[in-house]
């Protein structure tokens, strides 16, 4: 086919690229396709037209139903030609046109004839085409031929039938399953590819029969598989069998491990890789099992082939989780925490990959090293990465920055070199996402490591001197306003901030003005100078900047009385106490009149607890990107809310607020949930009520609490809700006194009492007279977990060892039958209300034992650490060994008491 389809023009511009398909048009090609109908078929011309059609389809051109049908019908005419080349193209175009079932009938007889042709190429391709386009009923008709084809002596035909079987299994499993004898024969084929396809199909047919798969694997692992591809499959199936066996309680020597290990010595690299990967991903792999796999991967690391290096790093990167899991288990057994020697050696090889030509490999190597590196290697690593960063794309850089952030959290002592690194890359060129990742990381480090604060803030200051992203500038300015005044020398930041007022756009200028005001307010000595600076801003060209400057000047110029100070502080630093959504609705409803808008009339309760927030609990906000918790529901929000209520102001510092507990079923007339606030001597229940009936207005809403089943509590006060209109939530409170520092528990039954007034839906006005009514709510319990704060520790082992070993209390408990270990662990975590550490709350699937590390702060600010070891026997009975260390022995005892009573 050396002839171009379009003759090159003589005056063709040499600079224009030549293509035989230049100026090709669908309409014209469809016209050309009429040659298919000629009585005397010209194979060459027809092939050319088919190629053009395929080209159009391939370039994304689509044919209408009518066009496709027309082409399909004329193509079927070409079966009369005996030209093999043309026939091959006909097969191809039929597959591309994917005719509908009523059209298929036209070609089936031709294809069935070809299926039994003497020409191998016809047989193989006819099978592939036919199986692609037919439905179940036709399939039964040709089933006989397909079975024959599977055992055809020509491997191409046999493969075609087997692969078609793999596709058909999805649509017609019951038919394909009948072929297993023939397929079995194919597994023994001498052709590599036939063996591969047969094995794949046989396994697919039997995949739901665990015993059959296990038998298949058992017989094949003894050798007889020649094809590397088939061998790879066999390795996958073997790992599956190993997983299933450990699932079903078979213990002892790991079966088939020897087979996997022998595959590490296979001559095909793809088999070696598959086996090494399978071994690193084994559940609970031991050091002895791991070593040979690591050794071959290490060899791959220095291979001249990029694909091998990539594959090896990727396997180590993924497998590392398994490897570290392994070391963790060792830790439980009080054995040293050293990495297996082999892995450490790999790290050295991997370091050389940082300078790999292929940046994907280099990035993978770095993230693997960052993940697994130890404290002593951090500095060396950072030095190497610095050279590397300049010539990789942003997306790779972000991966590296994220890895560094987690490294810094892991090794706080190393913050200095990490911070230097981050500030250096911050100065270099980069896109928004990349810069944001860096800034987020620096902010996280500043938050987590107090020593890093001053240096980190200065880095950020330098960054905003030359930052093209408004978003980042404003975020940093805001952050500076909060953190800057608390540093030892706040004045040094002022210059950076004030520069913004001169050099930036209005948004940044406004943010800078707010930040200046915060400094002025917090640092008395700076106040006069800040006032001077703000005065200059009054002449800014932008409204918002001027307004802010004026406003802050008057705040700063306040009379200095305590009251005014408090107000200004609230104003400058407090977040809006009402949810923005509620604020928006209220403002929309506000009717401009004599009466000024009163922010206190805006409901404070978030209408529906956002799901995301529940998820985020216990997680630290990372960087600037994380929004501050919704004001009225976060801990700080609660704290502010409660301290603003005079009745509760004397209770002291809030220790803990629970997450809301629903007291009503979903979709009832009145939706009520409760938040338990724990103080040292008191407990306050905050009832969040929502009226869901548009025709009603509720007044004097109160909750009557019966505390007869909570002997240690006595009610001291309650605060009713004056008015509860439709769909704007409000809160009622009830406060109890309890013995100081004691984790008193009890059960409370609640009744909602209120006065109902009918509301006229058309006018929205309520009637004057109301009816008293009450509504039974569900019971509420105060449990031990309410007295423990979830507080995570960054290094559990260090924290554990720093506590007095003699105060450790250990006891064993039977937890009875459970579905799984994970369920038991969750139950214990929920019971204690403590923070799981180091990801130990997740149990590797199929594990029979697990150790969970928990940390928390007990009421009275006593730090508690718990190490709970779980074991499950064959009848799913779960036993737990609980070791508790606390700063106060009595607290450790209390924890045990909680478990014993739970």
């Amino acid at each position, binding site marked *: *086919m*050396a002839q171009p389809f379009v003759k090159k023009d003589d005056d063709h511009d040499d600079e224009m690229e*030549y*293509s*035989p*398909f230049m100026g090709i048009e669908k309409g014209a090609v469809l016209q050309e396709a009429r040659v298919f109908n000629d009585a005397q078929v010209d194979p060459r011309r027809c092939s050319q037209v*088919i*190629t053009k059609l*395929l*080209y159009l389809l*391939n*370039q*994304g051109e*689509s044919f209408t139903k009518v066009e496709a049908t027309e082409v399909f019908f004329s193509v079927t005419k070409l079966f009369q030609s*005996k030209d*093999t*080349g043309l026939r*091959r*193209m006909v097969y*191809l175009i039929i*597959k591309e046109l994917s005719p509908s079932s009523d059209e298929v009938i036209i070609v089936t007889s031709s294809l069935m004839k070809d299926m039994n042709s003497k*020409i191998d*190429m016809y047989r193989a391709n006819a099978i592939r085409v036919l199986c*692609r386009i037919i439905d179940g009923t036709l399939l039964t008709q040709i089933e006989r031929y397909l079975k024959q084809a599977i055992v055809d002596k020509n491997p*191409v035909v046999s*493969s*075609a039938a087997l*692969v078609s079987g*793999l*596709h058909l299994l999805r649509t017609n499993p019951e038919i394909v399953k009948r072929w297993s004898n023939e397929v079995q024969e194919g597994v023994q084929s001498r052709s590599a*590819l036939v063996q*591969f*396809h047969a094995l*794949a199909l046989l*396994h*697919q047919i039997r995949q739901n029969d665990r015993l059959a798969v296990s038998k298949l694997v058992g017989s094949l692992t003894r050798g007889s598989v020649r094809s590397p*591809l088939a061998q*790879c*499959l066999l390795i*996958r*199936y073997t*790992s*599956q069998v190993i997983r299933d066996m450990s699932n079903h309680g078979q213990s002892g020597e790991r079966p088939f491990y020897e087979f996997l290990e022998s595959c590490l010595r296979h001559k095909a690299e*793809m088999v070696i*890789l*598959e086996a090494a*990967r399978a071994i690193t991903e084994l559940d609970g792999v031991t050091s002895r099992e791991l070593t040979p796999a690591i050794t071959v991967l290490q060899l791959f690391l220095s291979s*001249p*082939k*990029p*694909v*091998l290096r*990539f*594959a090896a790093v990727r396997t180590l990167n993924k497998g590392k989780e398994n490897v570290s899991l392994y070391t963790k288990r060792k830790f439980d057994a009080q054995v040293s925490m050293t990495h297996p020697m082999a892995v450490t050696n790999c790290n050295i090889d991997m370091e050389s990959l940082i300078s790999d*030509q*292929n*940046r*994907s*490999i280099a990035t993978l190597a770095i993230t693997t090293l960052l993940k697994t590196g130890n404290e002593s290697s951090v500095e060396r690593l950072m030095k190497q990465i610095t050279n590397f960063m300049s010539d990789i*794309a942003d997306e790779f850089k972000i991966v590296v920055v994220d890895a560094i952030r987690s490294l810094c959290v892991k090794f706080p002592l190393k913050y200095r070199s990490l911070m230097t690194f981050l500030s250096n890359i911050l100065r270099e060129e980069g896109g928004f996402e990349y810069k944001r990742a860096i800034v987020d990381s620096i902010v996280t480090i500043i938050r987590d490591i107090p020593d890093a604060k001053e240096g980190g803030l200065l880095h950020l200051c330098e960054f905003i001197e030359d930052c093209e992203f408004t978003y980042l500038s404003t975020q940093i300015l805001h952050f500076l306003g909060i953190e800057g005044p608390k540093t030892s020398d706040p004045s040094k930041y002022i210059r950076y901030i004030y520069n913004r007022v001169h050099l930036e756009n209005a948004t940044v200028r406004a943010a800078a003005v707010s930040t200046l005001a915060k400094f002025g307010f917090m640092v008395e000595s700076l106040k006069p100078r800040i006032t001077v600076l703000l005065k200059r801003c009054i002449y800014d060209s932008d409204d918002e900047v001027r307004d802010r400057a004026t406003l802050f000047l008057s705040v700063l110029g306040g009379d200095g009385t305590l009251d005014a100070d408090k107000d200004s502080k609230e104003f400058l630093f407090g977040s809006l106490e009402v949810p923005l959504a509620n604020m928006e609705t209220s403002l929309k409803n506000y009717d401009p009149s004599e009466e000024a808008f009163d922010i206190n009339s805006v409901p404070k309760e978030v209408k529906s607890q956002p799901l995301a927030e529940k998820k985020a609990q216990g997680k630290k906000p990372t960087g600037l990107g994380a929004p501050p918790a919704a004001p009225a529901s976060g801990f700080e929000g609660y704290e502010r809310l409660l301290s603003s209520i005079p009745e509760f102001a004397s209770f002291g510092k809030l220790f803990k607020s629970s997450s809301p507990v629903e007291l009503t079923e979903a979709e009832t007339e009145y939706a009520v949930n409760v938040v338990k606030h724990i103080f040292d001597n008191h407990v306050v229940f905050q009832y969040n009520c929502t009226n869901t009936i548009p025709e009603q207005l509720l007044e004097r809403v109160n909750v009557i609490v019966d505390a007869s089943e909570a002997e240690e509590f006595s009610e001291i006060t309650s605060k009713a809700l004056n008015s509860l209109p439709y769909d704007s939530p409000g809160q009622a409170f009830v406060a109890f006194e309890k013995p100081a520092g004691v984790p008193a528990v009890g059960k409370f039954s609640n009744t909602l009492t209120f006065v109902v007034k009918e509301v006229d839906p058309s006018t929205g006005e309520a009637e004057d007279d109301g009816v008293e009514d009450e509504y039974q709510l569900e019971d509420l319990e105060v449990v031990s977990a309410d007295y423990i704060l979830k507080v995570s520790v960054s290094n559990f082992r260090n924290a554990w060892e720093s506590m007095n070993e003699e105060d450790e209390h250990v006891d064993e408990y039977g937890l009875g039958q459970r579905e799984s270990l994970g369920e038991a662990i969750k139950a214990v975590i929920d019971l204690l209300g403590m923070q799981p550490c180091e990801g130990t709350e997740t149990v590797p699937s199929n594990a029979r034992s697990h150790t969970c590390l928990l940390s928390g702060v007990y009421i009275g600010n006593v730090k508690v650490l718990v190490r709970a070891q779980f074991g499950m026997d064959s009848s799913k009975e779960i036993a737990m060994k609980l070791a508790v260390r606390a700063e106060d022995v009595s607290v450790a005892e209390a924890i045990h008491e909680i478990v014993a009573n739970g």
Partner: protein
Amino acid sequence: MELPPKVKNILLLDSEGKRIAAKYYSGDWPTNTAKEAFEKAVFSKTQKTNARTEVEVTALENNIIVYKFVQDLHFFVTGGEEENELVLASVLQGLFDAVNLLLRGNVDKREALDNLDLIFLCFDEIIDGGIVLETDANVIAEKAGINSIDPNAPLSEQTISQALATAREHLTRSLMK
């Protein structure tokens, strides 16, 4: 993982990232726009690398992509991230060598476009619905190459099988007359 290795697509792009031939076997890119966006991303990510001697590899959107360039042609094979990259590499190598055989060593964009039918057939012989059908370049080239027989070419330039096929065809023709 229990399924046989799957190829998500095979791409042949020119030196500007334009599609010469592409075949998608997975539903990850349902529209032509999505396909073109993917091709663009792949092309720009690999553009600056040197993949002329060894098969290179990269990761993109949870996919593993192996690639190799020759002249102004860029070959890509994509698989899922759980795939064995060496299997993908063997598919790519098979494709690459088969195209080289079929184009008789003149592998560039112009030759590829002039023989686009062979390229399409090559794709068709390597992968069937995402499943590896054949990776041996000689076998692929032979199966796809039936079409390239020029009946007028001297017999010495044809392979044995091609010669046999030609002979067979001549025979059938003469018998049918």
